[in-house]
């Protein structure tokens, strides 16, 4: 085939010998391991970020906005000064921002299932959950980016964590791990609901109360009893307490364990529901 025939793409003439060469049924490689298939789908998620970098807006601008807004809005009133308040707020606002952006997982899944490429994935002899895990791996990267952005903004504004590098890294790792586990709720809704908009709607309904009715912004002791009860069982409160303790250099093993168990339960329950929906779709 000459260069001219490939240039336009439309003047292509299928050549029996060239096609024949690629059709020669070579030895088929063994099916990929569960890990390999999951990582491949994770790579796909990275490529999407590469091709549509605008989507990183929600993991950069949004967290910066949240941090600045709440630090200066409440700082003076609640803690005497924004810098004082920031020492309390930063782990919490980091948790809030990252947990908020988990909802894009569901939106992304919902957008994709309408496309033909999903049928191809589903007709491959691969470990079934790997497609979904791929999304979550890509999202874990986004969560890490958002956490890092908030940390940098915090450090610039005067956040001084006592836990040092180790404490901060451990807190971010815990947050990303929990968010990965929590996101299975959204893969489930992404497969369950009919449109992107309804996925967004449900996500907001869940996320707003979960993040605001927590110990992120203020100490729950001033809240009415029934609200304190909710805040007490809200997994976000536990995650915030655990993250604070790690960043402060005095890890609260009980809270960290609580968060890990809660995350594991989320994977078991919502992971199973997601795969059930995925196989039935």
């Amino acid at each position, binding site marked *: 085939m000459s260069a001219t025939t490939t240039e336009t793409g439309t003047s292509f003439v299928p050549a029996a010998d060239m096609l024949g060469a690629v059709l020669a049924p070579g030895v*088929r*490689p063994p099916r990929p391991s569960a890990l390999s298939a999951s990582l491949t789908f994770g790579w796909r998620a990275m490529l999407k970020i590469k091709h549509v970098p605008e989507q990183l807006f929600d993991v950069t601008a949004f967290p910066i906005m949240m941090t600045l807004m709440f630090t200066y809005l409440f700082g003076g009133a609640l803690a005497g000064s924004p810098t004082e308040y920031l020492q309390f707020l930063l782990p919490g606002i980091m948790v809030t921002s990252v947990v908020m952006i988990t909802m894009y997982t569901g939106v992304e899944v919902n957008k994709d299932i309408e496309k033909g490429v999903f049928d191809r994935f589903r007709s491959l002899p691969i470990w079934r959950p790997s497609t979904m895990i791929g999304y979550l791996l890509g999202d874990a990267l986004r969560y890490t980016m958002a956490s890092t952005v908030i940390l940098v903004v915090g450090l610039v504004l005067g956040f001084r964590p006592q836990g040092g590098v180790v404490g901060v890294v451990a807190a971010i790792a815990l947050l990303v791990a929990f968010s990965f586990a929590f996101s299975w709720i959204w893969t489930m809704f992404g497969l369950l609901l009919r449109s992107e908009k309804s996925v967004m709607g449900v996500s907001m309904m869940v996320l707003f109360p979960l993040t605001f009715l927590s110990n992120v912004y203020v100490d729950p002791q001033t809240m009415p009893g029934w609200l304190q009860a909710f805040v007490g069982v809200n997994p976000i409160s536990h995650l915030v307490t655990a993250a604070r303790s790690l960043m402060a250099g005095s890890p609260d093993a009980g809270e960290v364990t609580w968060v890990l168990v809660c995350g594991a339960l989320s994977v078991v329950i919502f992971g199973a529901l997601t795969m059930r929906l995925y196989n039935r779709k």
Partner: protein
Amino acid sequence: MHDLAIETSGLVKTFGDNRAVDGLDLTVPAGTVYGVLGPNGAGKTTAVKMLATLLRPDGGEARVFGHDVLREADAVRGRVSLTGQYASVDEEMTGVENLVLLGRLLGHRKAAAKDRAMQLLEAFGLTEAARRQVKNYSGGMRRRLDIAASILNTPDLLFLDEPTTGLDPRSRNQVWDIIRIVVAHGTTVLLTTQYLDEADRLAGRIAVIDHGRVIAEGTPGELKSSVGSGAVHVRLRDAAQRPEAERVLAKELNTQVHLEADPVALTARIAGDDADAGPERASRALAALAASGIVVDDFSLGQPSLDEAFLALTGAPPGEHSLALTDHPATGENAQEEAA
């Protein structure tokens, strides 16, 4: 190798009240192109999706190379590939990324997946477009990438669901050439189409389906002889001569002549005992018109259209039931049940 690529018996899939596939019996020999011909909403895509393990049948059985599509889904997945009606490639990714992704998912190592992707892109004339996002491809290029993806590991059975719908004639010819080459190398192809001429050109056997059921099956020759060899379309110079032309055509072709809405146009279907007699009988009819002093402006002999084929096979044009009602398949089903 198993002699039969596909065997289904009494396959059923319902969506609410709509029985999309309603007792489908198919037997597809290995190593051929098998055409599944039917209008929109006939259940072609639903049937393909069940055979490709994407949908669970509600009843009946389906085997692909002897493997049950439900109980041995992974064994089936290992041997088939699907090119769906809407391109089964990721629009946001480039051509090479799509193929590397798939290669990795099929178990190739990174370097091997890359090599394979480049080979395929070259064989399909997409080298220049390799690093462009698929959303910037033309319809024909997208379809070629789609087929390249489907043969990344050369499958034993390739499902092509309306591969040429929406393509320009040149791209359609390219796809046809590709299908012929793929089959020559031993892959069985199940091709769904709305076009009789496409099935005729490519398929060794054709099943005509409507309302989720096979209404006719056979070689293209057998089907055409039951459908008729086509239709003669005539346009006269003078509308006043139409009644006379109708009489002459009816007598010459021994068939009923259809008067078109256009006052100078007539269509006569050539009756189907002998599939190859069409051109000869049509030219005799044309001579008879000239002998009667009727001036013919335009004349053509067409292959029977799918509509005409349906008319001949079912006694009702497809437009009478669900075919024209693809947005409301349930309504179409009801119409069919009432008619039955």
